[in-house]
């Protein structure tokens, strides 16, 4: 089941972060993601502010016992993207203020490009970290409940929130089952001589169809049986249902919300100042005594 670990897997600890309300966790995830992508003025400033956020996020990861190993593992799958960024933003002809080297044929390299790449990569790493914090401290089902809660206002316009959330939770429920199934089919096909590892594009596509088709067929028969089983247990999508689990908002969540709003507030203020107050960059940099870039 190694495939399901791409964006982190729930790790069953009982830390403060685990016990927080999933609705709050989902909200802060989105808030902090937005905040990472705000403009923060010049490079020194950007790294200063994002560095602050990095420290906060790292702290949350440590408190929530998020496995750094799985974090780096999911980062390692992004290296291709990082290289592309490096090529496009640094090695391809760019413009900038701070020259590194100018070749005789006119090809130039700038520090700006390097800083830009670093800045974008840092943002992406922070995004991954945020997502991993959410997934490794929150059960998928709880995330679904949170989603359903956020969708409730849409009921006014007759949006079927119950159906949507049940669909999502069923999809989540069947991911491991279908992964097992695809492994089983792959083994069965391998024993019949299908080679999934070697060959070029066309033969690979051909061998994948030997997996996809049986998997699709079994998917349909499964969903058919599931629908019958649900109906047999009295499921009616348009009837009012009660909930076995409900979410509870506690004082702990309130403290956490204040903390996250504070962090986001600092970030937003920094962004506002950097964007609208001329000379703010220099002011901030002079406080910390760092050269301005």
């Amino acid at each position, binding site marked *: 089941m190694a495939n399901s670990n791409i964006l982190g897997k729930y790790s069953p600890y009982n830390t403060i972060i685990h016990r927080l309300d999933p609705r709050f966790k989902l909200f802060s995830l989105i808030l902090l993601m937005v905040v990472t992508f705000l403009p923060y003025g010049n490079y020194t400033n950007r790294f200063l502010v994002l560095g602050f956020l990095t420290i906060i996020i790292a702290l949350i990861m440590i408190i929530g016992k998020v496995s750094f190993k799985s974090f780096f593992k999911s980062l390692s799958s992004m290296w291709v993207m990082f290289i592309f960024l490096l090529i496009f933003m640094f090695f391809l002809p760019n413009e900038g203020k701070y020259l590194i080297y100018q070749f005789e044929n006119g090809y130039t390299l700038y520090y700006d490009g390097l800083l830009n790449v670093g800045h974008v990569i840092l943002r992406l790493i922070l995004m991954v970290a945020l997502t991993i914090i959410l997934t490794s401290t929150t059960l998928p089902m709880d995330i679904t409940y949170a989603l359903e809660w956020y969708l409730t206002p849409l009921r006014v316009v007759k949006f079927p929130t119950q159906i949507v959330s049940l669909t999502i939770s069923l999809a*989540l*429920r069947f991911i491991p089952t279908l992964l097992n199934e695809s492994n089983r089919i792959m083994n069965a096909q391998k024993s019949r001589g299908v080679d999934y590892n070697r060959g070029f594009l066309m033969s690979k596509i051909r061998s994948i169809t030997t997996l996809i088709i049986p998997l699709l067929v079994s998917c349909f028969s499964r969903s058919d049986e*599931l629908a019958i*089983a649900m109906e*047999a*247990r*009295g499921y009616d999508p348009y*009837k009012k249902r009660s909930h*076995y689990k*409900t979410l509870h908002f506690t004082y702990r969540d309130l403290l956490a919300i204040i903390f996250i709003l504070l962090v986001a507030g600092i970030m937003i203020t920094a962004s506002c100042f950097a964007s609208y107050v001329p000379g703010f960059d220099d002011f901030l940099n002079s406080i910390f005594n760092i050269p301005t870039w």
Partner: protein
Amino acid sequence: MEKIIEVKNITFGYEKDKKILDDVSFYINKGEYVTLIGHNGSGKSTLAKLLSYILEPQKGKIYIENEELNEKTIKDIRNKIGIVFQNPDNQFIGSTVEDDIAFGLENRNIEQKKMKEIVKEYSKKVGMDKFLTKEPEELSGGQKQRVAIAGILALNLKIMIFDEATSMLDPEGVEEIRNLILKMKKENPELTVISITHDIEEAYLSDRVIILNEGKVFKNDIPSKVFSSEEEMKKIDLDIPFVLKIKNKLNEKGIIIDENIKTIEELAKFICR
């Protein structure tokens, strides 16, 4: 005895001139434990689908508590019949054991506090109370079926149909479910159980056995009479229970074994005595 299910002259075929079920009639009394057996293609799975209204009979009618089974009454009748299906994975709806047991209760709009109590009570009854927060991937087939049974028991229904509920389980799981059905019946004699099964050992433990062969009711009697002739059973590709086989062999040698002995454990105890 009060009839709870009545099947009257049912005919069904997937193709036009090939009848899977041909003029089948029988009834089931309240509180009875009836097993329906038959070899592959005898029509027993089709009968299960007809009883749970997944298919509609072409001719004939099915009555549940004197109410005809049709499109109008099916919602009502779903509150009387619970079905345990064959595939343990495909009927596990919740993401954890407790969620799955609660699913039927949620559908009936039962309040949360009461639901928690019911889930606790019935998970204990099927011996799954220590696994409440486990996900289906962490459970064995037999355990998943036990969860499905708990989910139905929790609804307090009158009739339970087992649609080949043990055919995808390992021998241990089959044993688990077999014992659970007997325990269930002991605790609630009012409960009517219909088990459509391959497992002749289970059939031997039930109150009554209905054998289907080529779309017709071949036999419909108490187990000791149904399985009385080994040759007759062999003719329709069925065997007789293992315990009965030993009993018959011992009888031939002049050792008379008590009629009431139905399981291997009991038999072993009796012989060792």
